[in-house]
Structures are given as C-alpha cells and as structure tokens.
C-alpha cells in the first residue's frame, strides 16, 4: 500500500501497543485528585469502574477487586477523592486509563463519610475497647517517636521532653506524615519499632494541619499496626480539637505532640523527690524496726523470769510437793473404799448360801422319786419322804396331808433351797 506521507504505516494494534509502551514508561505511580462520576461496581467480578473529573477534564479509572477489597469506604458519584495508581491503556477500546491501587477520600464531606465507615469497622473489631488500653511505663528506658523529622511535632516533643527529663533516650523513626505514602510508612514504622523492641513506649503523631493533612492517622493500616504493637502507643496528632481514629486506638491519646511529651517523659524533679521520699521511708522503717526490737528486749529484761529466775523455780518446787501429798492421800482413801466394798459383797453372798438357810431351821423335802415337795397335793398319807436338815437327812412317813387354813402360803423361801 502506498505511503502518502512517506512515513511508516502502523496497524491499529501496533500503534496502540506503542502508545501503551510510551505511557507505561512515561509515568511512575501517580496520585490524581478529582470527583468521582459514572461510578459502577460489578458485584460478579468485584471490579469498580468510574471517571475522575475536574472542571476541565476527565480520566477513566479501573479499580480491580484485588486492590479495592481493602477499601474502607464506599465510593459515590460526586465524592472528592485522590486516586493513586498507574496509567495504562485499555487496548480493545484504545482508551488510556488509571489503574487504581488506592483510593483516598478528600474534602470534608467525603472524608466524614469515609471516617464514619472506617470507625464502625474498627469499633466492630474491638480496636477502641477501653479494656485494651495499656498503662504507660512510669520510667521509659527509651522513647520511640514516629513522625517527620522536619515538622514542628518533633521539635515540640524534644523541647518539652528534654526539659522534663534531660537524660532521656529517644529513638526517632522518620516517616512522611502526609501524602499517599504516609499511612503505609507510618504503619510499617510502628510494626518495625514493635518488632525491634528497642523502645518501651511509642509516640506517633504530627503537628496540626487540615483534615486531609491528618488523614494518614485515620487510616486502617495505621490503626491496626498501633493495635497490634507490643508496646504502648501514645497518639499525638494535630491540635486538641483534632481527633483521629489513631487517637481512639492508641493506649493514650495526647492532645498535641507537646502534651505527648508531658505524658511520656518523666519529670526529673518529681522522680528525684519520689526517690528521696523512698530513701527517707527506708531509714524510718529500719529505725522503727530497731525501736520495736529494743522495746521487746526491754520487756524481757523487766520480766520476773529475767530478774528472779530462782523464785520461779521455787514456786514450782512448792507446787510439786503439794501434789505429792495429795497423791498419797488420795491413793490411800481409794484403797480403803475398795476394801469396804469387797466386804459388803462377801456378806451378801454368804447370806444367799443354802446351808445358811437350813442352819436357820428350814428343811427340804423330797419324795421317793427325788422331786422337791412344794405342795400338799404332791403327797398322800403313807408316802415316804426324805427331809434334809442342816447336818443330815431324816426318813419320814406321812401321816396325813391337808391344806393350810388361813392366808399363809407355804414357805416361799423353798425355791431358794433347790439343790
């Protein structure tokens, strides 16, 4: 095909590839501020497409799912934002576009919405829980400061801090405190300082500025890094009125960087006075201890034991002698009692003996079969009976047998005389 201008003829693809190469090579990462329009979010793919525009121009933006997943607010048309990303060419349509890696809200309205959304999310994660707050060390060995080395914050911290504690050890981790790179670098600095373990408290902050200037301290990465930090974090962002999300996550919120220094750096005069009071109480306690011991010793010296040890012994001798006498007397009495009791028993037993009964004139009758005669009815006239008396036996013949007239019963004692 003839070439009317004498120069090379590209195919569309060739030209597009060439344009893409130029664009990719011509720009590094860019941050573009503008208003969102034509926003669409495809639920199936998760990708977001929108235009960023200002009064004079517009640029297409794509925000792929892998990048927009960490977004902490929902973009809306009309929202002022800063898009950070790389320029690329969508070859199929011949459109250049911004491939967004991070989207930051900008302007009071958009920022307020984003802040509320993130605040809710972090609150749900429990990052603001007061129970998470840790106490600050009373005497930090080394104080970590994460801020810009250029700003007013570091000068304020040093001015106030070194006045309070002229011997302070401070390790500063320089970070940018505004702009697109601020948040990730602050978060990384918090993580590194935590990992290194060189400091036992961290101050994270910056001086005053607009809400956009302070925005890094509202970002999720920074809040999460502070929450995960192994040492307590003191936030020191802007002025008294500025409250960032880091302030809510931090273990202690200082109103300003100077205030942070007042909170973190111990005051040398106070510490010295405290030490002096401890020295005094040491001496006082020991003195009291001595006084107490001396008092006890004195009490012992005044006691009878100490003064008349013999008299105490004598009393004991006397008591022992008394006891000896009592012992003998009581024993003797006991023996006599026992002997008397034995005699009583012996007499009673003797009274019960059958021989004693026969001796008193009673007799025991038995019939021919040897049975003891108790009733008249057991015997008939002409029966032969044996009569046992105290010194022998009589054989007798019954002359007659008849019942007793009158109330008297036969001898009751008979039953005791059974042999």
């Amino acid at each position, binding site marked *: 095909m003839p070439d009317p201008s004498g120069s090379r003829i590209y195919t569309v693809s060739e030209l597009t590839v060439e344009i893409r190469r130029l664009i990719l090579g011509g720009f590094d990462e860019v941050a573009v501020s503008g208003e969102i329009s034509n926003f669409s979010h495809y639920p199936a793919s998760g990708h977001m497409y929108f235009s960023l525009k200002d009064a004079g121009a517009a640029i297409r933006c794509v925000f792929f799912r892998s990048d927009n997943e960490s977004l902490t607010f929902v973009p809306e048309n009309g929202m002022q934002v800063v898009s950070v990303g790389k320029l690329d060419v969508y070859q199929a349509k011949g459109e250049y576009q911004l491939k967004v890696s991070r989207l930051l809200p900008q302007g009071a309205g958009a920022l307020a919405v984003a802040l509320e959304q993130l605040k809710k999310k972090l609150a749900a994660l429990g990052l603001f829980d007061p129970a998470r707050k840790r106490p600050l060390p009373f005497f930090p060995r080394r104080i970590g400061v994460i801020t810009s080395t250029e700003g007013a914050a570091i000068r304020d911290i040093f001015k106030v801090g070194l006045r309070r504690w*002229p*011997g302070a*050890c401070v390790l500063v981790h320089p970070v940018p405190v505004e702009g697109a790179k601020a948040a990730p670098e602050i978060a990384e600095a918090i993580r590194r300082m935590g990992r290194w373990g060189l400091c036992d408290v961290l101050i994270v902050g910056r001086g005053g500025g607009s809400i956009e200037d302070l925005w890094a301290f509202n970002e999720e990465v920074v809040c999460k890094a502070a929450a995960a930090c192994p040492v307590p974090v003191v936030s020191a962002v802007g002025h008294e009125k500025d409250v960032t999300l880091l302030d809510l996550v931090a273990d202690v919120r200082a109103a300003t960087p100077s205030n942070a220094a007042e909170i973190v750096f111990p005051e040398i005069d106070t510490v010295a006075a405290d030490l002096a009071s*401890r020295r005094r109480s040491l001496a006082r*306690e020991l003195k009291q201890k001595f006084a107490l011991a001396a008092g006890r010793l004195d009490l012992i010296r005044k006691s009878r034991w100490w003064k008349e040890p013999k008299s105490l012994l004598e009393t004991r001798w006397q008591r022992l002698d008394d006891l000896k006498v009592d012992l003998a007397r009581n024993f003797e009495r006991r023996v006599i009692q026992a002997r008397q009791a034995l005699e009583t028993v012996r007499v009673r037993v003797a009274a019960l003996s059958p021989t004693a009964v026969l001796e008193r004139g009673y007799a025991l009758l038995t019939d021919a079969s040897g049975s003891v005669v108790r009733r008249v009815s057991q015997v008939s006239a002409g029966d032969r009976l044996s009569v046992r008396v105290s010194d022998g036996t009589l054989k007798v013949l019954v002359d007659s047998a008849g019942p007793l007239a009158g109330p008297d019963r036969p001898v009751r004692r008979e039953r005791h005389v059974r042999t």
Partner: protein
Amino acid sequence: MSERELKFEEAVERLDEIVEGLESESTSLEKSIELYEEGMKLVKVCEKKLAAAEAKLEKVLPQSAEDRPAVGPLKVNES
C-alpha cells in the same frame, strides 16, 4: 549501662518491696538490716542514673534491615 544492672523502674519497684518488707513485723532484724543496705544501694544507683542526665537522641536510618535497625545520631534544629 551493663546488661545485669537493674533498670530504674525495676530498681524503684524493688525499693517498694524492700520498704514493705521492712514494714512487716515478721521480717527479722538481721533481714531488715540486709534489706536496708540493699535499699540504700538501690537509691544510690537511681540517684546516679538521675544525675547522669545526658540526652541520647537517635534516629532510625533508611538502611535498617527488618531484623536489625541501623541507628544514627539525630540533630534537631531548635526553632
């Protein structure tokens, strides 16, 4: 500052314990004297630390590795 030396905060904590130990009636007199001597030693150490008041201001250098920080002196312009 040697590694074995107590940190100021630890020393003060130990001092508190010692004062408490002295207060206790069950602490023997011998132990009390021991505690007092240890306490006074700690007070001296703390006072020395207070007196050695020379600020040490450092900053993390960009070449810091993840596991080993590079640290250099920091100069801040007083405004």
